[in-house]
């Protein structure tokens, strides 16, 4: 991988990683951890939706699976929190592969794929809300026992860095995908599946790999959520809110770009905080802004903020040359 690809990633990591060194306010650190968790979930969506062109409206299915798997393995089976975290990722990838296998093999795409992912997430939500192993509607509490080997830390700064490390790892993963055969084939399937198959691309295998990776990454966000808040219930885990967040951030930031999900998540939640401050604590007001922003982005910035920045740079470059 070239230095040019890694430089922006390094910059973003230093920029965000330095914040806890200067700011100790809990609200700021909370905001950071939460935004990074959303960014991670969105990075998962971006692999399948941004690069693969398969728009999932139900990434909650993976977020929730990661969260519940991590929580249940710790609380009910006494498995070490770090191991449970990794198994949560594996569970998300497995669920991704299964949902992908069922829907891609049936040839679902476009709005049909969006609908079926939405329905899977809803089925999981109803099941988690009703079943005993997930704690039903009361949810699941992870016992507070602040020790590093339990993936629990007294300092919020440590969580910022862990979340950031995960986000950076996926940034590097995404940058690698962009430059790999798998990435080229995935983008080809997005642009024109028939033509890709004629060129020897096994479209089903490529999409399955994408949805498994996607599910695993978004599940990591869910598992991290559990470690940070030490609580999960069906509405948080499998609710539409996270499906929407996971999709909004890449679209706003720039779908199918390495930094898009992170830029989108930071922009959205920064904007959310500003709207809340300006409009007072009216419930839902930040989401009103998100919805409007989504429409505006689709209408005027189809490649998101990253796309806008690229176009601006090209224009300045041309202007400087002339």
């Amino acid at each position, binding site marked *: 991988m070239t230095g040019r690809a890694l430089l922006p990633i390094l910059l973003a990591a230093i920029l965000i990683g330095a914040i806890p060194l200067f700011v100790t306010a809990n609200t700021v650190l909370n905001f950071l951890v939460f935004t990074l968790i959303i960014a991670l979930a969105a990075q998962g969506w971006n692999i399948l939706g941004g690069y693969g062109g398969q728009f999932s409206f139900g990434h909650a299915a993976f977020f929730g699976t990661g969260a519940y798997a991590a929580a249940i393995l710790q609380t009910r089976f006494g498995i070490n929190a770090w191991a449970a975290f990794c198994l949560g990722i594996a569970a998300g990838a497995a669920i991704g592969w299964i949902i992908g296998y069922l829907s891609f093999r049936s*040839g679902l795409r476009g709005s049909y794929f969006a609908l079926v992912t939405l329905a899977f997430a809803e089925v999981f939500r109803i099941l988690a809300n009703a079943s005993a192993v997930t704690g039903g509607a009361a949810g699941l509490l992870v016992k507070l026992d602040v020790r590093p080997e339990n993936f629990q830390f007294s300092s919020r700064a440590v969580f910022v860095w862990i979340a950031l490390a995960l986000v950076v790892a996926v940034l590097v993963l995404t940058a690698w995908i962009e430059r790999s055969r798998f990435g080229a084939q995935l983008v080809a399937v997005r642009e024109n599946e028939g033509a890709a198959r004629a060129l020897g691309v096994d479209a089903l295998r490529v999409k399955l790999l994408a949805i498994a990776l996607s599910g695993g990454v978004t599940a990591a966000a869910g598992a991290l959520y559990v470690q940070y808040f030490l609580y999960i219930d069906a509405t948080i885990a499998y609710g539409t809110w996270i499906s929407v967040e996971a999709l909004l951030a890449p679209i706003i930031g720039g779908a199918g770009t390495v930094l898009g999900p992170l830029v989108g998540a930071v922009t959205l939640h920064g904007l959310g905080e500003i709207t809340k401050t300006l409009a007072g604590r009216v419930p839902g007001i930040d989401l009103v802004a998100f*919805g409007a922003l989504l*429409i505006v982005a689709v209408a005027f910035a189809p490649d998101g903020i990253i796309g806008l920045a690229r176009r601006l740079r090209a224009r300045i470059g041309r202007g400087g040359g002339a």
Partner: protein
Amino acid sequence: MLYSPAIVAEAIVNGLMTGAVYALVALGLTLVYGVLHIINFAHGALLTAAMFAVWVLHSAFGLDPYLAILPLAPLFFALGYAIQRFVIGPASHGDDGNILLVTLGLSILIENALLAGFRSDTRTIATDYGFQVVEVGPLLLSMPRLIGFAAAVAVTILLWMTLSRTDTGRAIRAVAKEKLGASLVGINVGHVYAVTFGLGCACLAVAACLLMPTFYVNPRVGNAFVLVAFTIVVLGGMGSIPGALIGGLFIGVVESLCGLYLGDSLGQIGIFLIFILVLLVRPTGLFGAKA
């Protein structure tokens, strides 16, 4: 678990009555899909908005929910027309993926604007006839739900007649079949799209008026309906109006029976499983033509 035939029969009849209103919600969705070939994810939020409108008219002016059809159906037609013409159409640049995202954005916007305006409280309308029952043979049926059933069936027939008998209906069907050809013979496709979207929203307004005497409204209520409506539309065959009616009635009965046998919290699962199965096995629907 075995229930007496009377209880099962009552569950089925109740399911049919709920199903008719589901069908009405699905009707708007399937109409829009059949013509514009898009799935309108804002459908649920628009239903919620219509239900709040019924509630506001009742609590502010004392207007009866059924009478609210008279102002609300045209109002929502106009609203739908404007949304398609001035938001969805221009913003999506004719790309299916974009339409999906724009309607999702609209849904988030409307739902949360309602949340900001009305807060998350659940509201109901109290009418004199809300709890009236009619005796039909051995069954006791709720009067407003019976009215809802009859009205939903009537609207479905009316819509079908409009599509098959009037000039506007013919234009809509022409655009649905062959967009380019229709525009070549002088049909204004943008206008027809907007009219279709408007009709879909008018269906929602009627559904809201029929629902409110027995149902409640909160900013998230539309979500429950819209997922059911998606199921009906997929089941009945995307774009098929009779399919929406039959699918709606079927889903109403399934939900009612699942509720009876599985309990309310798991009752909805039956619907989603049908939904996923139909999508995976036969995405053109049970009544739709093979693609």
